[in-house]
């Protein structure tokens, strides 16, 4: 982990998910817009985890939108990092072609 690229990359990811995401567009995304325009949007069902404490990229119980969304972003970045590092570092051990 002496690679500065990795450290800078994580810092950027944290800043984007934890801070910049507040300024993201809240308009429906491409699929959602198409579903609304064509007419099949109401065939969507709520996710089984819609009551997740992090549902819709907010932390349940945190009123301030900026803090709630930012915290959800930081938790998401940390979770993705933890899971993906565990998988990729774990798989590295099975690499038989390495010297």
């Amino acid at each position: 982990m002496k690679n500065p690229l990795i450290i800078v990359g994580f810092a950027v990811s944290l800043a984007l998910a934890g801070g910049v995401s507040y300024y993201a567009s809240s308009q429906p995304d491409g699929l959602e817009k198409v579903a609304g325009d064509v007419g099949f949007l109401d065939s969507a069902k709520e996710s089984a985890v819609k009551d997740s404490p992090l549902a819709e990229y907010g932390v349940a119980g945190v009123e301030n939108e900026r803090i709630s969304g930012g915290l959800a972003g930081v938790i998401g970045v940390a979770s993705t990092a933890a899971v993906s590092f565990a998988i990729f570092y774990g798989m590295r051990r099975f690499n038989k072609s390495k010297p």
Partner: protein
Amino acid sequence: MHIPDGFIDIPTSAAFAAISAVGVGACLKGATRSLDEKTAPLAGLTATFIFAVQMLNFPVAAGTSGHLLGGVLAAVLVGPYVATLAITVVLLLQALLFADGGLTAAGLNIFNLSLLGVWAGYAIFLVIKKIMPKNKSSISVAAGVAAFISVPAAALGFVLQYALGANATFSLSAVLTAMFSTHVLIGIGEAIITVLSVTAVMASRPDLVYGFRGAKSQLEIRKA
């Protein structure tokens, strides 16, 4: 472009879950060869960065936004096998923790974004790389063009799923036209983010970039 539950019926969703499981399984096998002490951290960073950037919806047209899919970005940085795994991790966490993308729809989303977006995009990247001069900036250009095309390609995956098993009965041609035209616009944003990110990594650690190592080894073969 995360499909919620309910758009596509359960049999079709189950079929795509099976296809995705086979595809991701194959990538688990293929990815081992490209993961070592040097590339494993970049693979983890790629998944993490894509999660973060997917939170940043950008406006594309009146009342519409889009966000990075990341298939080509990941494939160029860490190779298509690892890219499929990275995007799958992101999609599963989004569905499980953030209720973004349905749970029964997970196989549909993994098919479109982790498999179609990554592999169709990477194939286009390879073709463009081949016809460009063998230098660093060609990698960024090829990645950008491939990223641009990968978004409507992934959108067509949804159109296929809609054709096979939509719960609604609206005409397929309306869905096709709207999905394609909207996602061509989103593809521009995808291309910009992909070019910026690939260029940044190429500037600092070109030795780690999977899509560039291929170009180098070709040169080495000619020399020998």
